[in-house]
């Protein structure tokens, strides 16, 4: 239950960080909040040769209002975003989703971008980013590129990040007249068996985001009145996976039963 030995680096700038990544590639891992990575290292499921600690980096500690999007730097903790005074107004979906992320104690350290980098299929923040159709900002020595959420998270714990790249920020679109978020977990704060986000835009358009059933969050548009069909089709399409917490069948059943409740809640919120 202790990590294997590794080299530790605490660079002062993003430039130094991408320099280290260019040199060490796959052998190095970025340490932000460490709420998944350190647990995996203690259990020896992860074994990086080098840890690059970015927790103190001032240039990654920002929450910036870009007008139509909110940019959150890679060192921003989940509790810091949760305490951001404009959160309810600008990012209402995050305001209802973030309290489901881990526990108060892990949100003090866990970062917004770290959760997206880890790409757990049942995580709330990747689901929120996908439902909002947000983007991920990656930087390497070769330059910067911006990927849409859908193009970033490829599968369970798998992303499009190259080994010399780091996430410097994510951008959440300012969106949502009506929002709702619910999940089913064995215990509050545990990994969700199924998580559902619903977002209603200013023009009345509705999006349904589902996490925990497939390898990545799945987002579908819902046009007037067809929510029943969309949910039923999704439950059939997404086969679901079986693990310690739930069978694939249970996951599909939860989706069928939970989605209408979350949709109704978002509609009520938008009314």
């Amino acid at each position, binding site marked *: 239950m202790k990590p294997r030995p590794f080299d530790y680096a605490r660079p002062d700038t993003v430039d130094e960080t991408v320099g280290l990544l260019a040199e060490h590639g796959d052998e190095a891992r970025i340490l932000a909040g460490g709420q998944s990575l350190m647990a995996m290292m203690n259990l020896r499921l992860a074994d990086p040769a080098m840890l690059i600690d970015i927790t103190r980096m001032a240039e990654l500690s920002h929450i910036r209002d870009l007008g139509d999007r909110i940019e959150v730097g890679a060192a921003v903790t989940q509790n810091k975003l949760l305490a951001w005074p404009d959160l309810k107004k600008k990012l209402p979906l995050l305001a209802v989703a973030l309290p489901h992320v881990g526990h108060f104690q892990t949100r003090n*350290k866990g970062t917004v971008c770290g959760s997206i980098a880890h790409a757990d299929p049942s995580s709330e923040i990747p689901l929120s980013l996908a439902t909002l159709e947000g983007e991920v900002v990656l930087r390497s020595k070769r330059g910067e590129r911006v990927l849409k959420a859908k193009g970033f998270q490829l599968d369970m714990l798998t992303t499009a990040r190259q080994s010399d790249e780091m996430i410097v920020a994510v951008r959440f679109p300012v969106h949502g007249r009506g929002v709702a978020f619910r999940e089913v977990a064995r215990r509050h704060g545990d990994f969700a068996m199924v998580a559902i986000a619903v977002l209603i835009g200013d023009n009345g358009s509705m999006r349904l985001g589902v996490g925990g059933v497939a390898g990545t969050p799945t987002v579908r548009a819902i046009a007037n009145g067809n929510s029943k069909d969309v949910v039923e089709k999704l439950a059939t399409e997404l086969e679901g996976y079986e693990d310690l917490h739930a069978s694939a069948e249970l996951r599909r059943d939860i989706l069928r039963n939970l989605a209408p409740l979350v949709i109704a809640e978002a509609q009520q919120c938008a009314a």
Partner: protein
Amino acid sequence: MRRVNKDQKVRINLTLNGRKMGAEAEPRTLLSDFLRHSLGATGTHVGCEHGVCGCCTVQIDGAAVRSCLTLAMQAEGRDVKTVESLAGENGKLSKLQQAFQNHHALQCGFCTPGILMSFSDFLARHPKPTEEELRDVLSGHICRCTGYAGIMAALKEAVGIS
């Protein structure tokens, strides 16, 4: 840039419960082990070592965190507080600790230091929480003795919910 190689031991200085302290550690040394083995602060307990049970919760710069998911290197230069910081100089229990005693909110006491450090952070930020909020924060801890009833009674007394 601060760099330490894996086979290197370096001196890590921090402030523990208001006192400047330091000891040698490797990069892989967890803060929980550093506190207990190197600095002798054994009030912090180590349970699951993967961030689930909450026994090892300490405060870094006032924020409650799992010390088993924190490297000692990450606490370098920081202000760390453990359960030893809560009682007054004459051993007088803090309001929260006294409430735990009043309501038998512990039996074996293994999980208690972590719970106290979580709530002393949370209550400093949210002095008037609801019962639901207290339960939510408590969900980050596992207690196998009390069934949580005594802990909830103590927390409610400490924040003045009758």
